[in-house]
């Protein structure tokens, strides 16, 4: 679409408000496309938090010390909280949590493909915090300034909590790297497995990304996928060097001219396949969410039925 073409007066006014940095609130006028894009983006984000509880939840009962167990519990609990804040933001757009979750369980909604990879060792808890939450923070900080008020406010809360997640992950990696040779090998193996999926987390390259340009105009997205990915690489390479770990990319090198690290080609074929459902854990993750939802159904009904009984008794 050519910029400015076929916009109604309302849409033009809407764009002017966005350009002026005015936040859009739930009851304000918004174009249908804006609403739909937000619903899609925020609910994907919410699902990612909820599905993201699973790979790490996997290791809570096996955490190697009581302190690590407490941290892991608090972190995975935060993710449930983040999902909750984000589902609430979707509700302000007129879609209930129940509906949003149904889309996920029916396989109609997407979530971050990285959570379809397995957590095989304790070092994966470190790698996820360090790399996955590190990537997430880079993607999320700009969203704190996005044009939709409830989304921006939820993100402010999430980003505040997310910093602890990344630090605890880095600390796990650091402890492993200073530990026995077996532990250091465990850390390197985790980096090898999580590095490329972390780069994919920032989404397809700008040339391929279908929604980018309009989302940037609407200030739902503030930087392009490639910009965010570059920022992640630049931030993470020195951290890996500090840990004494090798990033599994032979093409990775500092480019003095650009002032950035160059890095190798991402396997987008793998990325699209994982999104399509062919990742190592897609089925397990979805099945776990469906099981929790179905097994929780009688609990939710019982609580609702009890509240209704009590309200009736009170009224009588």
């Amino acid at each position, binding site marked *: 679409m050519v910029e400015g073409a076929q916009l109604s007066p309302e849409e033009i006014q809407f764009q002017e408000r966005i350009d002026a940095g005015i936040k859009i609130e739930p009851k304000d006028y918004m174009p249908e496309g804006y609403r739909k894009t937000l619903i899609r983006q925020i609910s994907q984000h919410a699902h990612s938090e909820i599905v993201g509880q699973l790979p790490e939840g996997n290791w809570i009962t096996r955490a190697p010390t009581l302190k690590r167990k407490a941290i892991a519990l608090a972190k995975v*609990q935060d993710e449930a909280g983040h999902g909750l804040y984000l589902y609430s933001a979707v509700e302000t757009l007129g879609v*209930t949590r*129940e509906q949003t979750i149904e889309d996920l369980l029916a396989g109609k909604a997407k979530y971050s493909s990285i959570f379809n990879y397995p957590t095989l060792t304790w070092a994966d808890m470190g790698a996820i915090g360090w790399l996955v939450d590190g990537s997430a923070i880079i993607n999320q900080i700009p969203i704190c300034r996005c044009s939709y008020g409830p989304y921006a406010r939820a993100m402010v809360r999430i980003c505040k909590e997310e910093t602890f997640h990344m630090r605890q992950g880095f600390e796990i990696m650091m402890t492993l790297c200073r530990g026995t040779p077996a532990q250091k090998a465990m850390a390197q193996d985790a980096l090898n497995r999580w590095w490329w999926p972390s780069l994919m987390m920032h989404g397809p390259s700008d040339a391929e990304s279908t929604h980018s340009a309009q989302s940037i105009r609407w200030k739902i997205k503030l930087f392009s996928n490639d910009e965010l990915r570059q920022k992640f690489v630049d931030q993470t390479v020195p951290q890996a060097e500090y840990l004494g770990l090798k990033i599994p990319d032979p093409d990775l090198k500092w480019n003095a001219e650009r002032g950035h690290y160059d890095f190798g080609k991402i396997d987008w074929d793998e990325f699209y396949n994982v999104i399509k459902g062919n990742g190592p854990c897609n089925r397990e993750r979805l099945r776990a969410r469906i099981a929790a939802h179905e097994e929780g159904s009688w609990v939710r009904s019982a609580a609702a039925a009890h509240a209704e009984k009590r309200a009736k008794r009170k009224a009588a």
Partner: protein
Amino acid sequence: MNDWPLWEIFIRSQHGLAHKHVGSLHAPDAEMAVKNARDVYTRRNEGVSIWVVKSCDIAASSPGEKEPLFEPANSKVYRHPGFYEVPEEVKNM
């Protein structure tokens, strides 16, 4: 009936400020909304008091009325202290 109603959560922080809207959640009744709010929104010592209000019970101004509601205040600059000139010699007013 499986859907729990939506509640808006207001928290008063330790610093004596008024209750502030922090977000929302689902709960079958008010008692559980308060408990859930404690678990969801005060995990990091954010508050000392919680209010919960069913979202559907909140009456809100409509965005269409923004101009008649809020424009008039714009023209009454004399309500702000900066409107008045205070001579240099007279400090602390």
